[in-house]
């Protein structure tokens, strides 16, 4: 097909499609670049000419935003909460997925459905009961407390994707291992675990990004400014009295930079893994 496309002369339809796609690229990229541009101006410059390039660069905006928004602490908190949630949810999720995909028991279909229903439940529904319970247990205002719902809400996605990956593994692998005297835990840790690396990568990235951007739970559960995560600290800059635009944009850039970097590094793998998982489901 690709060879055939190259031989054909470019049709006008394709040209129009390219023009539309290029226009969309502008719509997608322009706001982000403009944000970068504003973050390097001073406030007077933004008011006078919001769309021009900065005449004098003001990198000190970033330093000010960093200290004013306590972004350093927020970055550490986000990394800690999301990192731990990532590891735990991958481990628990892949264990459950392995039992569902590979082991033989009557309720495995039911268990799969049960976990997938979790994807439909909006986090808002458990917000109040969980907050009340955690307040009793002293888990509010603690990073550990925030990890618990993050792990739980990462599980459905992880189980969904990992079940697909485990199911696609050839059964002979396990059979020959069984002949060599490998038990069920050996199946999981020595065979399935190392072979599902792509699956871990994809589901890990998906859940990590989701938790990294999560706002509502973090806002409700954490009130100590030193324990807040990145999206919450950004809300310091909102509101009718927030007029320090350049700092706000510097803070936004700092907040989204890690995601952009990770995305640029792995975008093709993300896309491929997503495809693999989605088609199987």
């Amino acid at each position, binding site marked *: 097909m690709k060879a055939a496309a190259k031989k054909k002369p470019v049709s006008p339809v394709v040209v129009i499609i390219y023009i539309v796609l290029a226009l969309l690229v502008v719509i997608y990229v322009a706001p982000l670049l403009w944000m970068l541009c504003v973050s390097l101006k001073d406030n007077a410059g933004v*008011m006078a000419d919001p769309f021009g390039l900065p005449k004098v660069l003001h990198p000190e905006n970033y330093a000010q935003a960093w200290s004013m928004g306590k972004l350093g602490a927020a970055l550490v908190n986000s990394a800690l909460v999301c990192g731990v949630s990532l590891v735990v949810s991958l481990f628990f999720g892949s264990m459950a997925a392995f039992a569902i995909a590979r*082991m033989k028991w009557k309720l495995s279909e039911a268990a799969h459905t049960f976990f997938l229903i979790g994807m439909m439940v909006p986090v808002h529904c458990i*917000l109040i009961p969980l907050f009340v319970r955690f307040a009793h247990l002293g888990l509010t205002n603690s990073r550990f407390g925030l990890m618990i719902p993050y792990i739980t809400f990462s599980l459905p996605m992880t189980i969904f994707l990992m079940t697909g990956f485990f199911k696609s593994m050839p059964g002979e692998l396990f059979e020959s291992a069984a002949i060599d005297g490998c038990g069920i835990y050996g199946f999981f840790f020595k065979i399935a675990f190392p072979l599902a690396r792509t699956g871990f990568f994809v589901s890990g990235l998906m859940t990590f990004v989701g938790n990294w951007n999560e706002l509502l739970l973090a806002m409700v559960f954490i009130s100590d400014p030193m324990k807040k995560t990145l999206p919450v600290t950004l809300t310091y800059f*909102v509101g009718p009295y927030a007029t320090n635009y350049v700092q706000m944009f510097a803070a936004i850039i700092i907040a989204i930079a890690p995601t952009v970097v990770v995305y640029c590094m792995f975008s093709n793998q993300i896309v491929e893994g997503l495809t693999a998982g989605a088609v199987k489901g």
Partner: protein
Amino acid sequence: MDKILKDKKAIFIFIAPALLMFVLVLVIPICQMLYYSLCDYAALTPPKFVGLANYKKLFFKDSTFRFALKNSVFFMLFSAVSQQIVGLGLAVFLTNIPKGRNFFKNIYYLPCVLSSAALGLLWAFLFNPKIGINALLAKFGIQGPLWLMDTKGFIILPMWVIAFVALWQYAGQNMMLYMAQITGISRDIYEASYIDGASKAKSFRYITLPLIKPMMITSLSLNCIGSLKFFDLIYNMTQGGPNHRTEVLATELYAEGFNYFKYGYASAISVVLLVMCLIVTLLIKRVIKVENYEG
């Protein structure tokens, strides 16, 4: 071999941690929420059973809730339709161009992985009455509207603005899912249809569309539920204002629960939200399955 895979103890050990978390963090709190929704419960006092009073107030006396419900339904319908069309359109375009597929795909998907909270601040600024887009329009002598503060019409302008920003951010998700499905369709089917004299449009209608229907269930459900629980963008763009006119269920729930500490009342709102999610999911499954293409 079978004996190893039927090991009851191992199955239990594998399932237990995930199941335990699910029960503790999802199942029990949902039951509690159902109970709270029937109570008068204001943070500091213990919950007091009042029957359906919260729901009565919600549906008959609360004008903010009416705005929120209307906006949520509008937002869901608009997002579902617009994101499906744009997502599918992009997927079809991208699978039909000879070069640059990855480049375009990566750019359109980028906003999906960025924080809505951050993007909300960006767009709130761009739709500011004076600076931003209106400053650009002013250069051409056009007086821009008050994008995020106008309150005229049944669906007010700010809701449209937010809905378009959401389309901008999340269309890439559908594009990705559909591209996965379309590239999975065998090329032979298309070649055969071209030999039989089918046009591109016809092959789209009779080959692509029926074969991507299973994906439609997934992506449509994700769209609808995602837009029902939408919170971040609205919170950072309008905070529900002006005068509660851009409130959606999620923002009203947050305000009632954590600004006014009316836990019982907020629980009633979350019951409405949960029921809507369930209805929509079941409806999508039912409707699309009936038409499902066999063969």
